[in-house]
């Protein structure tokens, strides 16, 4: 097993331990709610990271898709169409299907135009959330989401939801890692840098990206369902353009294209939310300024930057190696 692989698994183990410890040591419904929020953000960012960080396709739809998941779970359970557990599972399925639908025409577009299409889709979702009042409760939100119940067990406290959320978030990270390390993941990363080269290497770029985008939607769907069942209501506010931008900004700051970037990002969001709880209006300003600085200074984000500092031994050897290679000629 390679060095890097070992370090990643160690990191995941540490994360899992930390999350378990946090769950056990932290007390209070509000605090547990924050931890669930961390898991939700982690899921959102992990999904986004796959399509943005690895495949190189910037998506502005993630916040809207998050909302779609939240409302699907909320509406289906609040209107008693299906039991809450089914609503929970339906959310990622619906969002994945929607993502596939949007992805089909959108992924044929190159780069910036793909991003524009995701922007359009995301904003349309957001606008509909706020205006389909009879369905979604409009700007005031959807109330009356019942407690999630699975096989008689009720997730009636944030504490209970947290364990489910933590398990799902960790699973999400593990799956993402599997994908990235696989032949498919490598192909997607390659295609993100040169599509013609990927094509002549035999990579069916469009199909893989479509599958990835669908998966990304599934992550958002799970995140949405968790959010809904933790808080018991759904409001459209976080699902708009700025929500989408925030996710992108946080991912960029934390390190897109790295395994733990989403973790750092989710932690960053938690930190900001808490530090600025009383001055919520300052948060976007700080994020904006940080982002502007980061774009100009640290293109690979905090996690990537840390990765190079503490794990990039191969990189530092490279200049020496090239001299040797030159001498051998």
């Amino acid at each position, binding site marked *: 097993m390679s060095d890097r692989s070992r370090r990643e698994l160690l990191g995941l183990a540490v994360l899992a331990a930390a999350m378990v410890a946090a769950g056990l040591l932290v007390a209070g419904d509000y605090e547990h709610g924050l931890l669930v929020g961390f898991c939700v953000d982690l899921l959102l960012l992990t999904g986004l990271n796959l399509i943005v960080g690895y495949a190189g396709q910037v998506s502005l739809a993630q916040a809207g898709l998050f909302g779609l998941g939240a409302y699907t779970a909320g509406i289906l359970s609040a209107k008693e169409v299906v039991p809450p557990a089914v609503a929970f599972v339906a959310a990622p399925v619906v969002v994945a299907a929607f993502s596939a639908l949007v992805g089909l025409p959108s992924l044929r577009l190159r780069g910036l135009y793909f991003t524009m299409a995701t922007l359009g889709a995301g904003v349309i979702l957001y606008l509909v959330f706020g205006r389909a009042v009879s369905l979604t409760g409009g700007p005031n939100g959807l109330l009356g989401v019942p407690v999630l119940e699975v096989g008689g067990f009720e997730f009636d406290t944030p504490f209970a939801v947290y364990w489910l959320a933590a398990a799902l978030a960790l699973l999400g990270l593990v799956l993402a890692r599997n994908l990235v390390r696989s032949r498919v993941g490598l192909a997607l990363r390659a295609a993100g840098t040169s599509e013609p080269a990927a094509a002549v*290497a035999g990579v069916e770029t469009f199909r893989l990206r479509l599958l990835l985008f669908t998966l990304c939607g599934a992550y958002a769907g799970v995140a949405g369902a968790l959010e809904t069942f933790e808080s018991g209501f759904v409001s459209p506010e976080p699902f708009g353009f700025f929500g989408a931008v925030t996710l992108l900004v946080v991912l960029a700051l934390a390190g897109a294209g790295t395994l733990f970037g989403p973790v750092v990002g989710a932690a960053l969001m938690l930190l900001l939310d808490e530090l600025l709880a009383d001055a919520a209006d300052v948060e976007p300003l700080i994020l904006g300024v940080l982002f502007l600085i980061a774009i100009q200074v640290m293109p690979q984000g905090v996690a990537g930057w840390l990765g190079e500092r503490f794990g990039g031994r191969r990189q530092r050897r490279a200049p020496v190696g090239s001299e040797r290679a030159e001498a051998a000629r």
Partner: protein
Amino acid sequence: MSALAVQGVTKRFGGVEVLLGVDLEAAAGAVTALIGPNGAGKSTLANIISGLERPTAGTVMLDGRDVTGVPAHRRVALGLGRTFQNLELFSGLTVLENVTVGGYTAGKAGFARSLFGLRSARREQAELRTRAEEILDRLGVSELAGRRVDTLGFGEAKLIEPARMLMSRPHVVVLDEPAAGLPPGRASELAERIAGLTSDGMAVILIEHNVPLVMSVADRIVVLEGGTIIADGAPDDVRTDERVVEAYLGAADG
């Protein structure tokens, strides 16, 4: 039946005819060179053969099978490989990763199996990695494996695409100006390598500017000028063909 046959290919682009009625045949185990002045349409033809562009008219036949409508990535599994004139490397990835991607079609584990990290998928990827290491070793550059391609010198970088291409075990390859930018000494080394490919039965389509290289290694030369073929035959015949000398060889630094 030739390994690759281009029949009547025409490419019109925004009112401009880049290629007109081009016929070309490449036999297995032979080097078919495609030469011509800049702007003659060589790269467009390369793109059409490899599937990155669709012709306005005409067909591309691979082993007697019509692949004109087949997208580029599917031609790879049918045995087609190609390198680019302007290096198309996967920046940000290591040399080993770059080459490993070339073996993509050899893998069967799909999206789901990769996502769940099933052992079959992991084993497959490890095998591809090993194969990539072997190819790098054969080319004498295994020490470059862990380097990011962005850090390579030009000469080193030039080897990556062929290595990547060989991963898919093609039997028809299009080499687009492989000698571009190489110092004279390296060009003869390249000629040897190209000849070596054909001894394995590969059909090599060599697009080149370097006339001495072409003359030394080609079994057949096709001359493209202004989108049409003006000569097609054995090197000695083409070399003395009036039209060719006038249009190209005379002007080129031979």
